Structures are given as structure tokens and as C-alpha cells.
């Protein structure tokens, strides 16, 4: 028995959680929004989601294979990326474009920078931004929700933010925004479903509530100060999905508390600036991507002061 004793450095106990558990929790948190997207936009929504996830899985598998790296499909992170990308596309997007977005997200934004945890911008957002730049028409074709049931007009156009930009704000009902009865991307419209997922993630300690609450809070306060309708602004566009699921991406947000605060305030401020003063109606994607790039700098400037360092022992 002498030779069978295992010697290792402490600790000899582990919390038992692994990366796959975290990703599975994120997928569970996205399910309410998935159901809402099918309810609002019909089964084509499901088709877009399946195509995005399948393309993400295939891209992850093949790129690891080609790069001769250990296979990481099993950690489920590519499913999260695929779902989030699908949630950021309009229901009418051509399926090949949806698939292309997934390939760009996984191969270019994630795997080329070393895979999970190494990417410096959110892969799903890169996929969306590339598609918006490449196919602006297809990416800005908004369908009225519930049109697929035949009860509503199939023709449509403006999203609430576009309406805000054209002074049609009075027609917007906040309650219908909460349940997603508005034009928009698949997963971004139903704020209630997104909030449900967000609460689940906070309860499961997957994300800290800091980033979503400060991000949304900043948008609320700033739009209010600047004379816009804060309730409509926080329920419109991609703010909810961005603040809860995209800005909280581990790899691209600061790791320390005060870094998270600065980052979330920055995301909120940029979103409002783009929405109110930029030429685009929506600014969540760009705001998050810009703050992703600033993350290393924010982390460096907000380093915590370790216990017993700096000022001499603080007396009570």
C-alpha cells in the first residue's frame, strides 16, 4: 500500500463545480427567451436558433481538430455563443447568413485567440456586428410579433428605438415592451423572459448582479437626465439581453468588483450616447464591444488593495 498513496499539494477538497455546469446554467437561463422567441416569431425563429447552434458546434469541433488542440465541444460554451447570436438576429435572416455569423463568432473571435476564456471581445457580438456590416438590409428587417399567427399585420418596420428616433414615442406601451410585443431580434424583445433568466443566473451565482443592474441603471438615469423616456429605453433594443447575457461574459468583462462597476457604467453611458446622438438607433452591441476592448485597462486601473497592504494596519 506504500506505493499507492497519492501525494498532492493542498487543498484536497473541491467545490465540485466545473465549466460545463456553468455553461449548462447559462443555457437553462436562456430557455425562457427561447420559448418567447418561438411564441413571438413562430417556428422560423426555432430554425434560426437551431442553425446557429449547429454551426457553432461544428465550427468549434472542426477548429479544435484542425488546430490539433484538445477537444472542447463538451464544455457547451459554443452552444451559449450560438444561442446568443441567434437571439441577436431578426427572424427573417437568411439561414446561411445566420450560419456564417456563428462561424465568424467561433472561429475568428474565439478559437483564433486561443479558445474559451482567451477571446478579448464577446464572440456572439462579433458575429452580429460582422453580419450587420455585411448584410445591413437583411439585418434590419423587423417583423411584427405574432404575425405568424395571422392575427396581426405581417407587414412591419420600425422597432421602438427607431420610433423614438422619429418622434413616434407616444405610441409605445411599456407593458407590451415587457412581454416583447414589438419588432426586434429573436431573443431581445421579451424583457420578462430575459429578466427571469437573469434572476436564475444570479441565484445560481453564475453572474454577479453588479454588471446588469449598473448597466441598466446607468441607461435609465442617463436617458432620464437627457430628457428621453427611461422606461421605454431600458425595455427596448438589446439592452436586457446585452446587460444580462453579453456584458457579463466572463472572458471579456473585468474580474474584480470595482472593475465591473466602471465597465458597466461605461457600457451604459456608451449605449445612451449612441442611441441618442449616434446615427444608429441601437448601440448596445457597439457599447459592449468597445468596453470589452477596454477591459484589460480597466482591470489594471482598478486593482484591489490586498489585505494588510498600503496604509499601515487600519485600527478599528
Amino acid at each position, binding site marked *: 500500500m506504500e506505493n499507492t498513496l497519492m501525494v498532492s499539494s493542498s*487543498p484536497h477538497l473541491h467545490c465540485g463545480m466545473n465549466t460545463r455546469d456553468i455553461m449548462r446554467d447559462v443555457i437553462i437561463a436562456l430557455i425562457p427567451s427561447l420559448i418567447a422567441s418561438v411564441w413571438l416569431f413562430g417556428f422560423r425563429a426555432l430554425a434560426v436558433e437551431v442553425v446557429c447552434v449547429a454551426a457553432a458546434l461544428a465550427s468549434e469541433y472542426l477548429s479544435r481538430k484542425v488546430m490539433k488542440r484538445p477537444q472542447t465541444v463538451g464544455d457547451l460554451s459554443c452552444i451559449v455563443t450560438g444561442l446568443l447570436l441567434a437571439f441577436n438576429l431578426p427572424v427573417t435572416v437568411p439561414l446561411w447568413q445566420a450560419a456564417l455569423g456563428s462561424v465568424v463568432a467561433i472561429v475568428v473571435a474565439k478559437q483564433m485567440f486561443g479558445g474559451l476564456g482567451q477571446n478579448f471581445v464577446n464572440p456572439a457580438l462579433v458575429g452580429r456586428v460582422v453580419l450587420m456590416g455585411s448584410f445591413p438590409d437583411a439585418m434590419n428587417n423587423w417583423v411584427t410579433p405574432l404575425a405568424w399567427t395571422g392575427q396581426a399585420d405581417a407587414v412591419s418596420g420600425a422597432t421602438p428605438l427607431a420610433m423614438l428616433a422619429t418622434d413616434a414615442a407616444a405610441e409605445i406601451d411599456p407593458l407590451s415592451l415587457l412581454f416583447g410585443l414589438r419588432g426586434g431580434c429573436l431573443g431581445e424583445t421579451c424583457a420578462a423572459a430575459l429578466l427571469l433568466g437573469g434572476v436564475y443566473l444570479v441565484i445560481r451565482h453564475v453572474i*454577479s448582479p453588479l454588471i446588469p443592474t449598473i448597466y441598466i441603471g446607468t441607461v435609465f438615469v442617463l436617458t432620464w437626465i437627457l430628457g428621453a423616456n427611461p422606461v421605454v429605453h431600458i425595455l427596448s433594443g438589446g439592452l436586457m439581453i446585452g446587460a444580462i447575457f453579453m456584458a457579463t461574459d466572463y472572458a471579456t468583462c473585468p474580474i474584480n468588483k470595482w472593475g465591473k462597476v466602471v465597465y458597466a457604467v461605461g457600457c451604459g453611458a456608451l449605449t445612451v450616447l449612441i442611441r441618442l446622438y449616434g446615427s444608429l438607433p441601437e448601440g448596445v452591441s457597439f457599447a459592449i464591444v468597445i468596453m470589452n476592448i477596454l477591459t484589460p485597462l480597466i482591470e489594471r486601473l482598478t486593482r484591489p488593495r490586498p*489585505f494588510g497592504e498600503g496604509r499601515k*494596519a487600519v485600527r478599528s
Partner: protein
Amino acid sequence: MSISTLIHKTRGGVHPPHRKHTAECETVQMPAPKTVIIPMLQHLGAPCIPTVKVGDTVEVGQVVADSEAAISAPIHCGVSGTVVGTKEILLQGGRTTMALVIESDGEGRVHSSVKPPVVNTFDDFIAAVRACGLVGLGGAGFPMHVKLNPKNLDEIDTIIINAAECEPYITTDYRECMENSWDIVSGVQTVMEFLGVKQVIIAVERNKPAAIAELSRIAASVSTSANRVTVKPLPARYPQGAEKVLIAACTGRRVPTGGLPADVNCIVMNVTSVAVLSRYLKTGMPLIEKRLTVDGSAVEKPMNVRVVIGTPIRDVLDFVGLKKPVRKLLFGGPMMGQALMNEDLPVLKQNNALLALAEEDAPDVAATTCIRCGRCVDACPMNLLPTAITKAYKAGNADELKRLCTMTCMECGCCTFACPAHRPIVQTIRMAKDVLRSVK
């Protein structure tokens, strides 16, 4: 009031499973073994030199090794018998030391030097603490006579008695509280008297309500407005009993990196140490026995045993019985305990647990890539950036390691415990600290 409820906020920490299976197990006396092995290094500081030769007859309580170094403590024999030899042994942690091998004659004759010490002055008191061979019994093994005699003795205003026992499995301090609470309090009174300290805080984690009730009952009977003895229940959160965390939770003071509790006018003593000291002053019997929690998935019947210091682990395991093959053998708790290479090592003064883990509790999980989830940052009680330290270590960047205050790490292991990617974070930080020690 004997319970003080104000708790200063401390950050970080984790919640490992308690697994205090032995909490209600009355201590069982293990018979003295046939052979004891007494290493010359059972404390922090300089190793001792034997004061007996091979062939000498020794008795219970006799000094068998001592040192003239300032930071050291004498070592006593726990059996009567004959010194049959010396051997070199490899201690956990990789240090080697010389050890005396003593064969017991089974008679347990007590040495003539064992009689209650005469203690009238502070100097007598410190001499008695040294003669007892007492070291910090919580695990670190810092010689007690050095700890109780800091340079700034007149500035010390608080003594904290550490009964937090935040490591999973271990219940030795809890048993001390339940079985010998009067020894604890009389030890506390003695220390207060000789050190002239007016405030003693006995810190216990809230998951031990019986100990809190027992200690506060007797603390109330001895506490006066001039000499306050209070019991402070603390949140059950690892590493609540780590010295720096404990001082911060009890007093709000922060020991500077590289500093000692005395730098913030505190002395921290383990609860069992206080009780041992009190018994020594009454009986004159020095530190020759230790209570051990023997537990783990390979152990037949987990229990608390009182063993003679120097008893080989093999004998302890035979005494409690095993039900499964042992995959990992630990001295101490699962969070900071050290894995042993074999069963030949003896029980040392500062050991408080022996855990025999079966295969299922010693998994070898491969690490995956860091996903920057920040759980290590949230868990760190010292407010460090563990993942950043490991990256700086891999990059060989000593300047960055310094900027990240790597030496502040107390190696509690919360980061590794919490890491979903199973990365050996604290293990890497230990190597990073070695890098900094070598560039100094």
C-alpha cells in the same frame, strides 16, 4: 455580557462541507505504542538537539531534546523505556530531520521532574511555558513562549482564543471546549494575569452552538468589567480561523503583510494550547499527548483519539481500523493539510487530525482552461487576484508578481477550491512565492 456579537466584515472565503462526523465523539485514549519516534523538529524555528543518548533509560515527561535557539521548544518523551536508536526521517513538506526512536517498557513510569512549576513572576511564567514544550497547537507550531513574550508586550490589549476550527472534519478543539472548558477558562485567566491584558475574545464558528453555550456560560462567571472575557460567534466560513482573518473579524484590525498579530496589538492562541498550558501549571505534566480527529472515507469508525506524541501513524490507523484502501493520507484538514508519503511518520505536537481518504475522495481531475469567471478573486480572503498571479508566474514576470502582492497569499486554498476549471491556483502561487523569495 459574555457573548459579543459585533463582527467586523471580512471578505472572501468559501463554504466547504463541514463533515464534522466526530463532533459528538468523546475522546478515546489510545494505549501507548510499543515504539515512539520523536523528530527533533515539531515546531517553527530551530530543530532541537537530543539531550539523551542511545541506550539511555527515559521516563514519561522527561526532556529528551532541547535547543538554545530563541525560537524553539523542548521536546518530551511520552513513554518510559529505552532510547534504541536515531534515524533520519522525511517530514511532510519535504524537510528531513533527525528523530529519536524510543522503545516503551509499557510501565509508564513518570519522571521526577514532573511537578507543578512555581510561577510568581512574568519571567517564571514564560519559563514555565517554555518548559511545557508548548507550541501553537492549531497547526503552525509557533513556540508559545515566544508568542506570549512579544517585543511590544505593553501595547498588547487583546488576546484572541482561536476556537474557530474552520477546517472540515476536524473536531479536536470542539472536543476540548466540551470536555475541558474549565481548563480553557483557567488558562485564559492565567494568561491575562501574567500578560496584564484586559480583554480576551474566544472566537468560535456559529456551527458549534454547544461550544458557544458552554464557553459563554463559564466566561460569564469569570468576566469582570476590568478583565473582559467574551465569546464571539463567527460565521461558519473557511478560513475563519486563519490568524489574519480571525483578528480582522474580531477587532477590525489588519495585520500587515509579513507582520505578526503583535503588530496590531493582538496575540492569538489556539484553544487547546490554552487548556494544555493550564493543565501543565496544575500538574507539571508537559505536552506529551495530543488529541487527533481520525476520519476520512477509508476509516472504519471516525473518532477522536488521544495519542502519545511520537506514535507512528500506522499504529493510529490500526487502532481506529480501516474499511477501504487508503488513497490519500492527510495530516490536518482537507483544505490546508499535508499529504503524507507513507505511514511511518509519527504524530507531531502540532497535528490535530489524521484523515485517510479512499479513492473516491482523492480524484485526479485534469485542469481545463481558465474562463476568467472570477470565482478565485471573490473567494480570496486577502483580496488578491489569484488568476493574475498564476499568469504572471507562467510569464516569469517577477515584477508583476511583486505588484500583485503575491507574498500576501496565506495559501488557504479557497481559490483552488472554488475554481470550476479545476486549476491548481494556490499550488502555482506557492511556486510564485518561491520565485519572489529567490529574487529577494
